[in-house]
């Protein structure tokens, strides 16, 4: 019996020691890619949840790789620190900016940086938010760096949230979506009055802090929106 056990143990030891001799000799995903989406009109392109991405295709892996995307942060920066080292085709997409068609080939390694310059469809200028009692009044004007050929302007709306992460898909519906203003016009057909917008949001909750921004949505392939910067509003307690 003892012999048998020791033989089984011996067998198990031989199996265990001979297993797992191969080593994974591929590098882990230790490369990174980061940068800014710079607006041609100055500063970074202001984005929101899911609005702009950097699309990567690792051509050093396959001739027809499945694309992967790095979402842009709200301030127009992007970063992915878990990429595999290699050669990638990269391009910003998702709007709301004049589409780029030429992909860039980048060797991504540790700490690779690249800034993309894009031309936004619409700029939101002179954005002010003033509180009058419990009513919040938003005023802003729209400008287009390039007017000709601009996709139809669908609508404009405020985004109000109780955190700094405010934008499409991150807003309080009762203060945001329901104050949407339909436009549905070509840029050339918009009057100056159409381009300067005033939105009143009544019944803001007293004693709360809100973060407010506005957006203009265009009928491009992504139905993407250009956003304003974010203003912090403290509604005084009664």
């Amino acid at each position, binding site marked *: 019996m003892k012999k048998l056990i020791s033989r089984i143990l011996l067998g198990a030891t031989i199996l265990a020691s001979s297993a797992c001799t191969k080593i994974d000799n591929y590098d882990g995903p230790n490369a990174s890619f980061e940068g800014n989406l710079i607006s041609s009109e100055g500063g970074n392109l202001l984005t929101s949840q899911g609005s702009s991405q950097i699309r990567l295709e690792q051509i050093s892996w396959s*001739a*027809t790789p*499945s694309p992967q995307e790095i979402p842009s942060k709200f301030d127009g920066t992007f970063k992915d620190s878990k990429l595999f080292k290699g050669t990638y085709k990269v391009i910003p*997409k998702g709007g709301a900016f004049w*589409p780029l068609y030429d992909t860039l080939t980048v060797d991504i390694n540790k700490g690779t940086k690249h800034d993309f310059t894009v031309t936004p469809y619409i700029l939101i200028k002179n954005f002010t938010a003033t509180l009058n009692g419990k009513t919040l009044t938003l005023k802003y004007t729209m400008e287009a760096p390039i007017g000709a050929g601009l996709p139809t302007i669908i609508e404009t709306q405020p985004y109000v949230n109780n955190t700094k992460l405010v934008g499409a898909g991150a807003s309080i519906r009762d203060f945001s*979506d329901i104050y949407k203003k339909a436009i549905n016009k070509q840029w050339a057909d918009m009057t100056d009055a159409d381009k300067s917008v005033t939105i009143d949001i009544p019944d803001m909750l007293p004693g709360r802090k809100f973060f407010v921004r506005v957006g203009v949505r265009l009928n491009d*392939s*992504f*139905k993407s929106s250009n956003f304003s910067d974010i203003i912090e509003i403290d509604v005084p307690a009664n």
Partner: protein
Amino acid sequence: MKSINKLIIAISISVGALVTSCQKLDIPPTNIFTPDIIFGSEAGVKSFLATIYRNLPIEDFKYRPDQGFKTGGNDWENFFNSASVTGEEVGPFGGMDIGTGFGYWPYDNIRNVNILIEELPKHADKLGQTNVNALLGEAHFLRAYYYFGLAKRYGGVPIVTKVQDPGAPLSELQVHRDKEEATWDFIGTELDLGYQMMNETNELGRANKYAAAALKSRAMLYAGSIAKYGSANFVDGQARTEGFAGIPADKANGYFTKAYDAAKLLEGHYSLYEKNADKVQNYVDLFLKSESPENIFVKQYSIISNTAHSWDATMSPRYMTANALTRSYPTLDLVQRWGALSVTNSDGTPKRFNDRADIMQGLEPRLLATVYFPGATLRGLTFDMQRGIYPTFSGTAAAEVAKPANSRSYILSGDTKTLYQGRMIIGFTGPWTGGDELTRTGFYVRKYIDAAKPISTVDLNRSEQPWLELRYAEILLNRAEAAMELGNAGDALTVINLIRNRAGATPYTSIDIDKIRNERGMELAFENHYYWDLKRWRISDVVLNNARFKGLMPYYVFNENKYIFLAEPELFQRNYNFDKKFYYEPIPGGELGKNPNLYPNNPNY
């Protein structure tokens, strides 16, 4: 001597063995069916056809747009339908969850059809040339059906018409995508062959020549709309510039003409079901009577073959069934396709009704046969929909609905046992938000419901009424739409009025494209057409732009002993948003991995 004898015996045995052993083993294998067995008799062909028919991309009761076509014995979740992402209904989908499809890729079935088309002519001696021709026509129809299922999802796909040899070089097996236009043209040609070669009639559940013409009218209408509207509203990308997703706009009229001509072929051979003088009951019967002259191509189900569906048990509340689970409910938005319901007075206050059922007065029979309203009856029980009780009610409906829920003066309840001064607060049939099984909109589906079934038999996997995949009303609507797109308003008006007369609606005196589309929405509600209609008209991203839908909530006003109806957001509070890229589904990732020639993928994937 003895040993010699033994020797002789031994030698003769070996010689005998040697002589007889040299037979070549050339007998047909007994454990597999050879083409001769299958294609040598009509029964064999029929069994082969059965598989092809069963897997057809028919979006029936059991079809789950996020998972695929279901043929099993327990695919009972029939409320996961495409109606419940398009605003016809609201239901279990959390939003526009079906935009990228389920990776439909039926080239295994297409291979079966290709085998059929290659084998049949070899067996003309046994099957007879006439039979072979009719069967070949059927095969072309079936192949077109599969390609239609592909084209409406992906646009251009590889057209494979030969049985591929698995041993062939990879370069032959990795077939390129064909252009979208070529794919639709192929479908049209296949259906022409089907129409020319098939017989006038066929057994129930199989296609005849008119089914080919009917499907052609549908497919060519899709192609025409995609050419016309897809060239105005599209997502840019390589697949589009190379013609895999998108058809040139100047091709639209050619397709509309083909759709119109194909629909015309059915004239005189099929007619709308009008056997019952009671217009409501007639419209109900149309979906339940298999002898209807309106049915062109149906899909059958049976409990014995383990294929029954669960429509009755998943569309009506448990109160009226033996064991039910409902989850998708018609919206007020759908009901108002028929025009606004008269539930408010001119001053904006809600109309007072003595009885819930009074809301149905004066409504179009087709509407009453499509949707169960509060006050309707099923299997001897009343749809007693009631959202809650107002002890008193004053003011306008709009002002009341706009109030935050906590400042409304209504009384709600989580169950039917809770009473307010001796009166039930909610109805046995809802609306209620605590569970899934009661309406969230104030309505239930009536189309296809078999009211004659006793309650005890209405259970999951126990419904056998056939799915009317192609019915003449749809062909008339295809014809009217194609006619209108071609500028033939006269024919469109005549045809639409045929449908409206049967429905019990007032005939139109003039017609436009919006009326035709609305008629289609009413006539074909819940029949899984609307999702594709919105897509081919390229208006899904407008109709489903963060869309929220409404229900009609019945309340009892206690001090007045009256009922009121308030149009309120449906109680799931769903939000539906259609991304433009969904106009084409992505080519399935697994297939792209196997065949790089399927690139470019559709735009934005």
